[in-house]
């Protein structure tokens, strides 16, 4: 595996870990609430136990939602969409990392002067639709609605500012990825690494509330 392939895998793994920990956090809360109702038995390591844990993790009472403010929520959603665009641009714009699935496989887009933006808009639309689709989940699944992701975590204002500050980082990552696309087949390892690190840092910051709570729950 090349360095870029490893980096791609690392981003995907990070997101997966974030998703897992989010469910785990919710499961943890539900277990505590169940203890209050006389239940709250520990998770069994078996298929039925894990299924039960997942159902605990995705079902969370609506009353536990904390409104974080529309400005922050809007910025957070923007940051996630930008992260998705940055991810798409860094790994799927040129054939360098994923030779079989990239923009340059589509001749009409690659040849068109506005192929980059078309690709980007596709990513944005896909991201927006995905977010809106999760919003359609019933109230019982509210904690896995992406629009309400941060509504189940306590965030200080500084933390919120940090999340919002990922936006300029992602802008730079996108800019670098576009530049790498224009110079292809030439490549710049340094720029690729910078774009990756910016994306990585942004994703870490975006999922930091989840990680923080799960660490606090553990320790």
């Amino acid at each position, binding site marked *: 595996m090349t360095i870029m392939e490893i980096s791609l895998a690392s981003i995907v793994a990070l997101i997966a870990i974030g998703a897992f920990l989010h469910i785990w956090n919710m499961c943890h809360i539900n277990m505590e609430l169940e203890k209050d109702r006389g239940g709250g038995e520990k998770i069994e390591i078996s298929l039925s136990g894990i299924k039960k844990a997942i159902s605990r993790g995705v079902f969370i009472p609506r009353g536990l939602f904390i409104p974080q403010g529309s400005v922050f929520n809007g910025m957070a959603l923007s940051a996630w969409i930008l992260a998705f665009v940055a991810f798409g*641009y860094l790994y799927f714009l040129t054939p360098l990392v994923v030779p079989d699935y990239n923009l340059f496989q589509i001749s009409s887009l690659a040849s068109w*002067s506005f192929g980059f933006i078309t690709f980007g808009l596709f990513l*944005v639309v896909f991201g927006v639709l995905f977010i809106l689709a999760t919003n359609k989940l019933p109230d019982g699944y509210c904690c896995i609605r992406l629009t309400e992701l941060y509504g189940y975590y306590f965030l200080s204002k500084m933390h919120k500012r940090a999340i919002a500050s990922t936006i300029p980082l992602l802008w730079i990552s996108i800019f670098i990825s576009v530049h790498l696309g224009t110079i292809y087949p030439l490549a710049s390892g340094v720029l690729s690494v910078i774009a990756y690190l910016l994306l990585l840092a942004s994703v870490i910051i975006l999922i930091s509330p989840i990680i923080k709570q799960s660490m606090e729950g553990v320790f």
Partner: protein
Amino acid sequence: MKTLKLYTTVFAILVCFSLVIAGPVYGQNRGYSGPIENGGSSGGGGSKKLTSSAFLNYLEDWKEHQNPNYKKIQKLLNKEDYTTTAYKTPSVWVYYDPNGSKTVSRSDEIEIGAYIENTNPIEIRRALYLYLEEKGPGDKDFKPAKAERQIIQVNEYDEKINNTIRIFPDISSFGYIKGEGEVLFRIVISDGTKRISKWNSSNISDHPELGYYGVLKLKVHNNPPKINNSSMSIEPKLVKWDDYVEYRAQLKDEDRDTVNVTLHVYKNNTELNFTKLAPTEPDESDIVFSTEDYNIFVEADSGKNFTYRYSCDDDIDTTWSEIGYGPNLKRTAEITIVGKPKVSTTDPKNYWWQEYSFSIDAKSKNPEGGSLTVSLYTYTPENYGKMWPESQTKQVYNDNVTTFTFEDVKPFEALDSNQTFYYNFTYDMADESGDYGTPLFEGWKINPRLIKYGIIDPIMILNWLPMLIVPLLGGILIERLLRKGDEV
């Protein structure tokens, strides 16, 4: 009683033994006189002489008590007289393997023989002469088969059961029969006494289980000759009218007949037939018709397409192959391509987005000239055989070279970068090769760069700058619509 018999037997043996060694044989003069008399020299003292009376006693005793041996001795010593009035006519059947099929093809191997039973003693037996007769499909009467007569000698019969079988070696298959249907066999016998025409096996009853037939009936069918359709070929398929063309196919006839093979060439409503005789071989045999041997095409046939097929006849059956397609005759040349086509571009970097210029020169072969339409095709691995949409039509003249130039051509896409391109031209008049297009000509390798613009190019700015704003607006818009950040 048993003891007595035993003593008698031993004694008889001893007597015989002594007779053999010492005494002469009765009736013959072999150097010694009759039964040993007393006083004769015996070579030894004390041996007893066998008298005739004693021998008689022995004989009577053997007759009574050892009858088989007695008979043997009797046979040796006495031969009965035979009379000719007890002669029995031998029985003769046509013999055919009882396990063999009665339905055979003309090429199947067969054995036909004669089965004879002759109960006459050997002394009065006569040699039998056997003649095989057949009656084939279309024959009215029996006629002699193509088989040599067989002679059965008197001593060829089995000693015990007095029979014998003799195969007619000349009849090994029915390949000589030109037809199919029922074939009958019978045997005509002669022993020198009876007339041939009157003594045959027809009247004797059959024993099919043993393979004996008075008249043997076999059904013979023909294996028709066949052309292997998949072997049909014509080379070359696209030719000028006077070029060499070869029709090939493979023929098979299991009966190994010599077959008449006819090539039927169809053009429009006419049919040309070309026939040759083809001996067949154990496997398939090649059949070839060529324009070298037959004048199949004329100049008027130029530009036309033909079909063909074969027919095969072994004088019994005729079979047909399936229709083959070809050849397609090129038209007669109408134009001449002058020199080689050219391609050029202004920027030596050869980016895919550049404009290229392609040109080709042609002139007419006809004095009156004509209107020639030329199209340009480019070839890259991603876009193979891509036609430039704007063809050119110009008048071409005899001896005046007309140049067809395709300028400002942008035939390539981004995915063609870093590939070597090829190109050719097609036209609607045949060139000197009878073709309607040039072969592929190699261009050069296109520059591998994919994107035309730099990062700060206005066009590229319009690509990335919105991508910084639109996602931002997307998130804000979602929040404005759903208001998830506000109180629930």
